[in-house]
């Protein structure tokens, strides 16, 4: 009679091996914060192709890197940029303008409609905002219909159901109880919609620690946990570190060389140095250097 709980901890290689060509995956966080970058870089290393990627409601340069690396066929998000680092994400811009990337055009409200429909196993959920706009034209999956109660025109936003959600959080115990620091942005909506969820965390904490503050448990019963300290770098991690501004500027410069001047060299060099050559997340951190990492703490 075995009566012990099973640890759900895996490493970033195993996590990325769950992702196969053509899947629909969701990646959490928000613009410049809280992305599961150890897993994202490993997906690129594995050369996964034709992904439908559901970003956060507003996506950032983590998705831009995936696009630049050629992993993404279709993107679902309401924004792609880096705020003051760059007004529009460069590889995204380049790929769309060259007709190489399909965008599931939406605003953040419609985005959550699609995720809620998936979570509720409904074909769609309705939304009013967007009537009179171009969204039903540029995203023909969003239909205008007449509501059966009052006869108003509404948008029917169809479900988009992730096969796997990849989430970044501060802490988890080995059994799939996850605790964010801060709000967790829209991560819960991704988790609810997805068939399976992998959460990459800064630290594994004992179950006893989780039980001391169950209010902080943001996701429960996820499918796997990946430990990756500094794993959101170069993006911020609430409670741990701020974004690496110098690194983000380096990335933006490399990607912009392609977006604006068609020169893919700097982006390829970035990819080699920071993604392809380091074999593991730990190797990546060596490339960044501990001095840089410890300079990013939040205070």
């Amino acid at each position, binding site marked *: 009679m075995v009566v012990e709980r099973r640890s759900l901890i895996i490493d970033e290689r195993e996590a990325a091996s769950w992702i196969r060509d053509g899947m629909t995956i969701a990646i959490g*966080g*928000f*613009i*410049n*914060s*809280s992305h599961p970058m150890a897993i994202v870089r490993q997906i690129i290393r594995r050369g996964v192709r034709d992904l439908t990627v559901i970003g*956060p*409601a*507003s996506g950032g340069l983590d998705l831009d890197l995936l696009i630049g690396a050629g992993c993404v066929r279709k993107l679902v*998000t*309401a*924004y*792609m*940029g880096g*705020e*003051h680092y760059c*007004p*529009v*994400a460069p590889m*995204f*811009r380049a790929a*769309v*303008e060259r*007709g190489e990337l399909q*965008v599931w*055009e*939406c*605003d*953040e*409200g*419609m985005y*959550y*409609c699609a*995720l809620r429909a998936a979570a509720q196993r409904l074909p769609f959920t309705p939304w*009013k*905002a*967007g*009537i*009179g*706009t*171009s*969204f039903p*034209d*540029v995203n023909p999956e969003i239909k205008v219909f007449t509501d059966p109660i009052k006869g*108003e*025109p509404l948008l029917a936003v169809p479900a988009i159901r992730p096969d796997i959600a990849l989430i970044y959080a501060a802490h988890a115990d080995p059994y799939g109880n996850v605790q964010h*620091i*801060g*709000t*967790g*942005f*829209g991560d*819960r*909506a991704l988790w609810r919609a997805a068939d399976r969820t992998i959460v990459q965390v800064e630290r594994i904490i004992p179950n006893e620690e989780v039980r001391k503050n169950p209010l902080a448990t943001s996701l429960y019963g996820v499918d796997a946990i990946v430990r990756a300290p500094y794993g959101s770098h170069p993006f*911020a991690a*609430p*409670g741990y570190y*701020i*974004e690496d501004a110098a690194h983000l500027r380096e990335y933006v410069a490399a990607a912009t060389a392609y977006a604006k001047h068609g020169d893919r060299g700097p982006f390829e060099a970035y990819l080699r140095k920071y993604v392809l050559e380091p074999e593991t997340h730990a190797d990546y951190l060596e490339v960044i250097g501990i001095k840089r990492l410890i300079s990013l703490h*939040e205070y």
Partner: protein
Amino acid sequence: MTRAYAQDFTTKELIAAFIAHQVRDGERVAVGAGLHVPRAGILLAHLLYCPNVRLYIVMTFTNLLKEPRMEPFYTVTDFRPAKWAEAYVLHDDFQENPRLVSNMFVVGALQIDPYGNSNLIGVGRDYHRLSFRGPGAVGTTSMAHYVDRYYLYVQSHDRRIFVEKCDFISTIGWGEGGPDGRRRLGLPDNGPIYCITPLCIMDFEPRTKRMRLKSVHPGVTVDDVVRNTGFELIIPDVVPETEPPTVEELRVLRERIDVEGMLRT
């Protein structure tokens, strides 16, 4: 009450003061990270006129009356301002009832048409071959729909932005105009109130809902505005100067809100 107006201020400071006058006490107001001038304006309103405003900042709610200085933040994900938080807000909560996040909203744009319809999607006739891909709508479509009052705000005023027809509409303004332009679409009557630019403030003429010049900023002529607008603006007989900030407003802006001087550049 006689107002002591400031003499020496930048256009950004002028606009911040204008935006401050749009805020109403007790309301919820979203404070963005990227648009420094509207952010400064809302904080100015809070410190001077609206002590009970509920500020939505980096996905928290707070009140900053007791903060001697607002430290700047540049991203909506900067966790440091969360030290002020009275409540955390999940981002997806906004979609449950956008009015619980904000009663007013500021919408940016790549293109704006005469009826205040606006575009953040991209520029180009063919959606599948855009000449410029924009950042996307963010939450503007939904927020503008739900709030009581929304404002168009752009950081430059030229004929690429103010166009006869947007290539795409991501946030509906007054539709095709007319007194019932929005109601014909089945929408409530809460189209944009003002369009705020570095040259001027514009409103919407009530009958046609076409954009109309309301005031020009100091040093700007009506002709400057007309020349830089790609459609025919309604120009009233008398166009005043935009009301300047008061001495007090400028002092609070500079000493407590814009300590880094971003509005002075």
